[in-house]
């Protein structure tokens, strides 16, 4: 435990660990000292000078070393100059005045300086409404400018920094947060200052420009509207939008996100998602998300949706009522005992649980649409409550085997890079170079089919030094053969009594781990199982036909195909019964991340047509067969999961919704502190029980 230090800020007694910066000590006491360049996730630089405060320290008598007393109280000496709260650490007995006349005057004067070069185009600026500069100006600045408007500095207003980020050079206040984020947090220093003085500009130094999968985060921490995203730019005003808590479904990290939605004429009066913003979860994604999560998951919007149940009649899919479609599917299931369920990790825990229950009831097989091996190992050796990538530092070793985290699970890349910065050892074994390689303490490049062997060899490799690790995490990917997971698991099995050790699969989809936990198994020969089946249920955008993984032979006898899917795909086009499902943004449910954290997502937009959530579809089908499954709400299904599966024991939606204060405190009224990432008020999620 760090030594605690007591001081007074604006008359309030504050006790914080030694070394805490004044700005953070104030924050912890609910006092917001305005900042622009300071960001709690980065080293302080003291550049913008917005946080100048009066700092007094107890006078010490040189001879005795004792505090000088005055009227029974320690005498406080105030310096002649104001000090930057973002760079000055607290000390015992310190007195900080952030709202004194002198401090307020200074804060107002710095604002005036900043505004001399700022275009004040708030009415057309994307940041307007959630802009720290705007907010502080409204709160503190003079209503009139002493600066001649015609003499404002002019610079490029539409400068593409890359294909995703636009720079408005006039709005930039040179706080360097974006530059420092890329440099310190991400380790990809692709942004820099160019020129000097008033001519200082942000440039990108990489080719291709702004070459970083984390680029979108710079727009969240930009304290003005200088950096905006290509997809949201001029798209909506912040105050017009609603916010829904969600979980990014694009990879197994399970980043907490907020979906901002708006009903708009352009979309024919529909509610649409305007942007994806990070939502704080310090154990998962902190306050960051990757560009895939931010920009790519609107991609299916161009895909055609199924709005009604369809039934194949005379070779054509025809719209029918739900009852009719369910009846037809149920009848077939009663006749044909040989059921195969092919579900993907796009589905929620609740959907998968119901599908598994149905398959079990009918003696069918539940298969995960994912050929990557290792599922069993991750359910038994996976992460538990003690695993937090944010805690990894000295003493921890992380093995990354056959996975390119930068592209497959970017936030894990970022978190492991930071763990390496804190002293954790990264051991990377791969057939291809990855961007994490430069942070590796031990790096092995070999042929694909040798990765498993090299992993087995690590146990005896003194350079890898796995024995000395207090905590060992092993990430494995799908690129290096079927023997890899077993080799990785063996590394962990060779150790015992290390509670935070974990094996983590870098799966393709958000809830592959959940499917495995619920009992789905991967299949090595999908075609053979399909050909043998009597009825096949495809669920969760499992589109093996479209992916070329499955051939549905013409003329040959083929199984009856029940397809539950939101979108029209090659597989749905072959369906005998088509059951329109809702997307993750239209309903609630939960995912289990690769780190075995169960997290809840909530509906953001109204459902499309007559679609239903998958768990409800399955419950209706099951009802037709005399099996009672929960189908009224995802909450109900989760209650059943918790009763049925020991690894889910104790989990319910109430627990999933629990939050506790996270540091740094972000997302409150003072957006200047943490940026526009959302504060988490909808739940931090719960780890599955360790096996």
């Amino acid at each position, binding site marked *: 435990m760090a030594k605690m230090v007591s001081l007074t800020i604006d008359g309030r007694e504050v006790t914080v660990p030694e070394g805490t910066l004044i700005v953070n000590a104030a924050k912890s006491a609910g006092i917001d000292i305005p900042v622009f360049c300071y960001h709690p996730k980065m080293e*302080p*630089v*003291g*550049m*913008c*000078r*917005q946080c*100048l405060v009066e700092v007094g320290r107890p006078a010490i008598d040189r001879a005795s070393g004792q505090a000088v007393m005055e009227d029974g109280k320690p005498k406080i000496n105030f310096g*002649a*100059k*104001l000090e*930057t709260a973002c*760079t000055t650490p607290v000390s015992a007995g310190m007195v900080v005045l952030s709202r004194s006349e002198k401090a307020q005057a*200074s804060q107002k*004067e*710095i604002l*005036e*300086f*900043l505004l*001399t*070069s700022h275009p004040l185009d708030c009415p057309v600026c994307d940041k307007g409404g959630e802009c720290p500069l705007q907010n502080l100006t409204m709160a503190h600045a003079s209503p009139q400018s*002493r*600066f*001649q408007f015609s*003499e404002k*500095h002019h610079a490029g207003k539409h400068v593409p920094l890359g294909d995703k980020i636009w720079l408005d050079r006039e709005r930039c*206040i*040179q706080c360097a947060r974006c530059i420092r984020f890329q440099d310190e947090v991400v380790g990809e220093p692709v942004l*820099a*200052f160019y*020129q*000097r*003085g*008033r*001519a*200082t500009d942000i440039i990108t130094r990489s080719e291709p420009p702004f070459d970083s999968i984390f680029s979108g985060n710079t727009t969240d921490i930009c304290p003005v509207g200088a950096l905006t995203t290509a997809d949201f730019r001029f798209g909506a005003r912040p105050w017009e939008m609603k916010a829904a808590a969600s979980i990014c479904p694009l990879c197994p990290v399970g980043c907490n996100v907020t979906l901002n939605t708006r009903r708009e004429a352009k979309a024919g009066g529909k509610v649409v998602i305007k942007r994806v913003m990070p939502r704080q979860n310090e154990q998962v994604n902190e306050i960051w998300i990757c560009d895939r999560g931010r920009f790519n998951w609107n991609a299916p919007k161009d895909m055609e949706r199924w709005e009604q149940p369809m039934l194949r009649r005379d070779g054509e899919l025809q719209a029918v009522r739900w009852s009719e479609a369910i009846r037809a599917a149920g009848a077939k299931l009663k006749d044909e005992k040989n059921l195969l369920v092919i579900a993907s990790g796009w589905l929620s825990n609740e959907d998968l649980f119901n599908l598994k229950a149905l398959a079990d009831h009918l003696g069918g097989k539940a298969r995960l649409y994912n050929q990557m091996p290792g599922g069993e190992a991750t359910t038994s050796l996976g992460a538990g409550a003690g695993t937090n990538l944010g805690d990894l530092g000295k003493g921890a070793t992380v093995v990354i085997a056959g996975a390119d985290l930068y592209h497959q699970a970017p936030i894990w890349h970022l978190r492991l890079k930071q763990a390496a910065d804190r002293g954790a050892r990264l051991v990377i074994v791969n057939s291809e170079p990855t961007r994490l390689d430069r942070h590796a303490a031990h790096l092995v490049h070999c042929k694909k089919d040798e990765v498993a062997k090299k992993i087995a060899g690590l146990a005896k490799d003194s350079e890898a030094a796995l024995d000395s690790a207090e905590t060992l995490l092993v990430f494995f990917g799908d690129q290096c053969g079927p023997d890899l997971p077993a080799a990785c698991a063996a590394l962990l099995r060779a150790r015992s009594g290390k509670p935070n050790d974990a094996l983590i699969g870098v799966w393709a989809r958000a809830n592959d781990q959940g499917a495995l936990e619920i009992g789905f198994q991967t299949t090595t020969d999908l075609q053979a199982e399909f050909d043998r089946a009597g009825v096949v249920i495809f669920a969760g955008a499992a589109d093996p036909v479209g992916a070329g993984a499955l051939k549905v032979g013409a003329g040959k006898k083929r199984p009856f195909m029940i397809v539950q899917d939101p979108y029209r795909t090659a597989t749905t086009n072959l369906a005998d019964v088509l059951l329109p499902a809702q997307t993750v943004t239209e309903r609630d449910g939960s995912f289990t991340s690769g780190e075995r954290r169960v997290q809840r997502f909530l509906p953001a937009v109204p459902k499309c047509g007559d679609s239903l959530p998958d768990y409800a579809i399955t419950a209706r089908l099951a009802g037709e067969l005399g099996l009672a499954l929960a189908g009224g709400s995802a909450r109900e299904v989760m209650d059943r999961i918790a009763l049925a599966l020991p690894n889910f024991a104790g989990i319910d939606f109430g627990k999933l919704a629990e939050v506790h204060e996270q540091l740094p405190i972000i997302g409150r009224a003072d957006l200047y502190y943490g940026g526009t990432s959302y504060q988490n008020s909808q739940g931090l999620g719960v780890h599955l029980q360790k096996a």
Partner: protein
Amino acid sequence: MSHLLLRQRDIPGIDQLETYRQHGGFAAFKKAVTSMQPQEVTDMVKASGLRGRGGAGFPTGVKWGFIPKDILPHYVVANADESEPGTFKDREIMAGNPFQFLEGIAITAYATGAETAYIYLRGEFWQVAQFLDDKIADMEKAGLLGDKIFGSAFNLRIHTHLGAGAYICGEETALLESIEGKRGQPRIRPPFPAVYGLYGKPTVVNNVETLANVPLIVEKGAEWYRSLGTADSAGVKIFSLSGHVKKPGNYELPFGTTYRELIYTHGGGVLDDRPVKAILSAGASSAGIPGADRTRATPMDYASVRTLGADLGSASVIVINDSVDLDWVINKTIHFFKHESCGKCTPCREGTYWMMHLIEHIHAGEDVQANTELLLSVAKQMQNKCLCPLGEFSTMAVTTAIERFPDDFKPSSGGGKHG
């Protein structure tokens, strides 16, 4: 009195190693390394009262004493950026009496336990840098640099490093950033370079002239050194005299010499024999002092100059006669600082830009009174807020010019006497 620093003026060829050694060169270095403990050298410099000649006037020995002994390695950096307008003494020392400067570095390195020293020169000094490289090579050949110097355990290497044309790199932390290959911008202090300097290690940064004094002190003792100059300003100083004087140039004089003596006796008097209107005592970054009798009678030492509401600084005396108005003078300084502001901190980046526009208006005779009031307000608004001293410096001439020379900012004077 013969020169102690600008010895080339008395001894031709002192830039040759042989000649320098014939005149006692490197005796001090040898004495320090072979007969003194590093702490003794530091104590001696402390006792001599030597103060930094770069402008701040901080006691040199005290600065050396801040170097923590338990963090290694240590570095010595010679600040040869010399970019203050009106300052041109370091160049003359390096070009004329290079070995005394290099010997000073060597002794400083010994005293502070550094085995590597850098000389950071402004980019325009590339010829000086090449010249110093040759002199360093001569020293290496003579065994005065390298391993086991004078048979002791002391090793030292000296490297020159050229800047790329930024005034800000004369600020010691920006200078360190620049050596490290980064953008030349100042760091937040504390921590000071003595604790967290070059590559994050304890570093002594001293001015060229400061270092050139060190061999004298070691050779002749602290007492002798103290006997030169005044009570609070020991030793001799090179005064860079420029502006409206007949004989501008460097003058090595004891501290305490009056402005009158510098300007009239050494500088040959004011150009066109006009009266002294103002003096900038420390280059473009200094306060303007009215050229009154009292000023001219003031001795040039740290304490006395302060009584005039200015600083001795690097002792770059710019004399301004009555042929120009102060608005013209500060127009020059503001343009300089606007051009050189590194842009890191808000008040300097925005303030110098704003001041430039205001002085242009004043200069053009537009709304002179209102714009002058605003200019004064903006300059004061910058003060005590900047990240490094250079931002503060940019306001010194501005506020003092307006406050001390109000007649030069009258509407009638707009567009008046401008050089």
